[in-house]
């Protein structure tokens, strides 16, 4: 990223008076930290995409194609670790959350600016450790991103270092969560009551609580894996009296709620974009805010649905199945409210809105296929097949990934003072959307037909659909590249973006573009809700 070009724009790019790399990596300005996160998560996203393409390439035909079986195991493990821990968990909350949250609240920064910078450093250190683990020791981890014991305790690959890196990333996530909760409680501008908080910030509030309450469990679980490997305590080793299922419980007590760390901010982005591009106040503000909290709460009690086939009492299966179904209610509330918001609205189909609309469709497909997995009887048929892979890519990438790009098109012009070109954005979106469905819907069909996940080789009858899926991945990647190239070029050299072109009523649209370092010259007094366009003076 060329800073010279950007600093010419004014605002927080230049008015701290300092330039050079030090003014960024030691900056406590939430906007600079947000952008640094953005650059990092996007870089790791590209790494993850590359690994994903390689996985698909290997699976294009039966038998060995481009890599050995061991490399293939490392590929899907590293793809998972990079995408989950380096891209999708910090993706929206750490980058766009940092960029937008304080401004939406009318604050000049987060509650603990130095802790915020420290979180970013921890993120970078953790990421570097994870990357180093790929090339040192016994080679890249080959356990799958879940690090299941007993294999993870025995494999000679570099699991300990990778797991330690993830531990540090978790610490970064906790600190961001604490920072956001404190900011939302203590730094709201006068008049910013709880029912005037924009829904993106509301979703970050729910996310932050999950980060605080769930992440410590993965921290201790990962420490346990490291101690198992180094000291041989035997806590998960059946031959020493331990229980490997305990690991799965502890792992999913975090990792299932972590799914909501990934999706809730995306839902928040959509809740902010849909009303602006429909020129209508959001339908059911309170229900959307409440459903974020409900998803965070209910989503914390459903971890057992990952273990239906691992040996669990029938009662346990039924309880977890019931709780899993409960999460569908607040999720559906959101979807219905977004659709109701658009009803009789004056919809303008610009890039952020297109990504938001595709979010609704893809997330719905992902959510509904989740119900098939949540019901024990159907889950036993498709457990650990490509159906599961298709399902969570619909939610994670179709949901959060598309929301991430929606947010990038919606908010980044505000911070760069320039905008992307509309036409390439739409072409890129079309390719992404088509490629995405060709890739992941095919995966769901493959799974229904019985193709297991994580397998290096497969039976000839799966060859045709695997070929289709791989072609889908190429179309999608072409779309991603066009979108990123268009954003990058537009934000550096595009036409100027000033004022409030989208017509948003949240506070970030009331300040200069790009925002000054202090955000607000004087503390704002909030007199209207975030979707009260008339109150904000938007025609």
């Amino acid at each position: 990223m060329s800073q010279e070009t950007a600093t010419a724009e004014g605002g927080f790019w230049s008015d701290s008076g300092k330039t050079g790399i030090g003014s960024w990596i030691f900056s406590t300005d939430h906007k600079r930290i947000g952008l640094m996160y953005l650059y990092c998560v996007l870089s790791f996203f590209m790494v993850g995409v590359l690994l994903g393409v390689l996985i698909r390439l290997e699976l294009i035909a039966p038998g060995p194609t481009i890599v050995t079986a061991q490399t293939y195991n490392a590929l899907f493990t590293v793809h998972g670790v990079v995408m989950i821990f380096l891209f999708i968990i910090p993706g929206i909350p750490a980058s766009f959350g940092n960029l937008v949250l304080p401004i939406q609240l009318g604050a000049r920064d987060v509650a603990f600016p130095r802790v915020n910078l420290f979180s970013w450093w921890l993120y970078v250190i953790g990421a570097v450790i994870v990357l180093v683990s790929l090339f040192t020791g016994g080679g890249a981890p080959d356990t799958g991103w879940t690090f299941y014991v007993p294999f993870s305790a025995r494999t000679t690959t570099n699991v300990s270092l990778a797991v330690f890196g993830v531990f540090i990333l978790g610490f970064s996530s906790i600190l961001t969560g604490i920072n956001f909760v404190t900011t939302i409680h203590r730094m709201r501008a006068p008049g910013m009551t709880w029912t005037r908080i924009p829904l993106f910030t509301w979703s970050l509030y729910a996310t932050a609580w999950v980060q605080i309450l769930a992440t410590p469990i993965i921290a201790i679980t990962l420490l346990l894996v490291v101690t198992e490997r180094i000291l041989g305590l035997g806590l998960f080793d059946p031959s020493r009296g331990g229980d490997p299922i305990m690991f799965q419980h502890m792992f999913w007590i975090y990792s299932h709620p972590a799914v909501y760390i990934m999706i809730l901010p995306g839902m928040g982005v959509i809740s902010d974009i849909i009303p602006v591009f429909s020129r209508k106040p959001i339908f059911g503000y309170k229900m959307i805010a409440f459903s974020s909290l409900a998803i965070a709460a209910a989503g914390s009690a459903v971890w057992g649905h990952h273990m239906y086939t691992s040996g669990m009492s029938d009662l346990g299966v039924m309880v977890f199945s019931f709780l899993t179904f409960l999460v569908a209610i607040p999720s559906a509330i959101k979807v219905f409210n977004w659709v109701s918001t658009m009803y009789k609205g004056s919809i303008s189909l610009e890039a952020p809105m297109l990504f938001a609309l595709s979010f609704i469709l893809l997330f719905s497909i992902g959510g509904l296929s989740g119900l098939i997995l949540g019901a024990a009887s159907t889950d036993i048929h498709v457990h650990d097949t490509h159906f599961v892979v298709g399902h969570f890519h619909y939610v994670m990438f179709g949901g959060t990934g598309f929301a991430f790009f929606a947010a990038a098109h919606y908010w980044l012009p505000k911070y760069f003072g320039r905008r992307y070109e509309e036409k390439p954005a739409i072409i890129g979106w079309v390719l992404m959307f088509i490629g995405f469905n060709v890739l992941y819907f095919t995966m769901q069909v493959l799974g229904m037909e019985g193709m297991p996940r994580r397998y290096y080789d497969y039976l000839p009858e799966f060859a045709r659909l695997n070929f289709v899926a791989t072609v889908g991945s190429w179309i999608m990647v072409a779309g991603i590249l066009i979108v990123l190239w268009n954003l990058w070029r537009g934000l550096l050299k595009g036409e100027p973006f000033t004022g409030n072109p989208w017509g948003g009523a949240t506070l970030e649209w009331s300040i200069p573009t790009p925002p000054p370092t202090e955000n607000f010259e004087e503390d704002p007094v909030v007199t209207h809700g975030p979707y009260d366009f008339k109150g904000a003076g938007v025609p």
Partner: protein
Amino acid sequence: MSHLEKDAFGAKLGMWLFLFTEILLFGGVFLLYSVYLAKYPKEFGLGGKQLDLVYGATNTVVLLTSSLFAAMSVTAIKRGAKKATLSLLTGTIGCAFIFLFIKYLEWSAKIHHGIYPNSPKLIEGPPGESIFFGLYYLTTGLHGIHVIIGSVLMAWTAVMVQREVLHAGDNVTLENVTLYWHLVDLVWIFIFPLYYLIL
């Protein structure tokens, strides 16, 4: 809340949230403890009897005393008594060192008897016993790391009190470090009965 004034309440809120995550971290270990206690009640009982009650009890007293000193240092700095604050903080750190020293004696005695993770004696013994001592080393080790971190934080605040960065008007950092210290103490208050007493 304007950014110009320092928000002591916000700082403490953040600290409490952080302490909550620490409780959950140790909660993971206690979760394992409860599951394996249900699975191996007899072996856990026998294991508990092998731990040295004198060491454990002494350490409990030492740690409680350190928490008392820490709490008194907060009162002292609020009264503006810099000297008293410093000596109370020194007392806290001293207690932490005594605690760690006793822990060292205790661990080395155990290791001397062949009880340590992956030791031949534990591998040959009943599985529940190896789980008990695995958890024992894990929990007390993790707690010990927290004692060390707490001592470093205490020393750092002492320097800031010395330099009068922290004083009667602005002492939230000292209060937060003290809160952390109380947490370390609190965790021990659970470890001591679970491992040494009730079994």
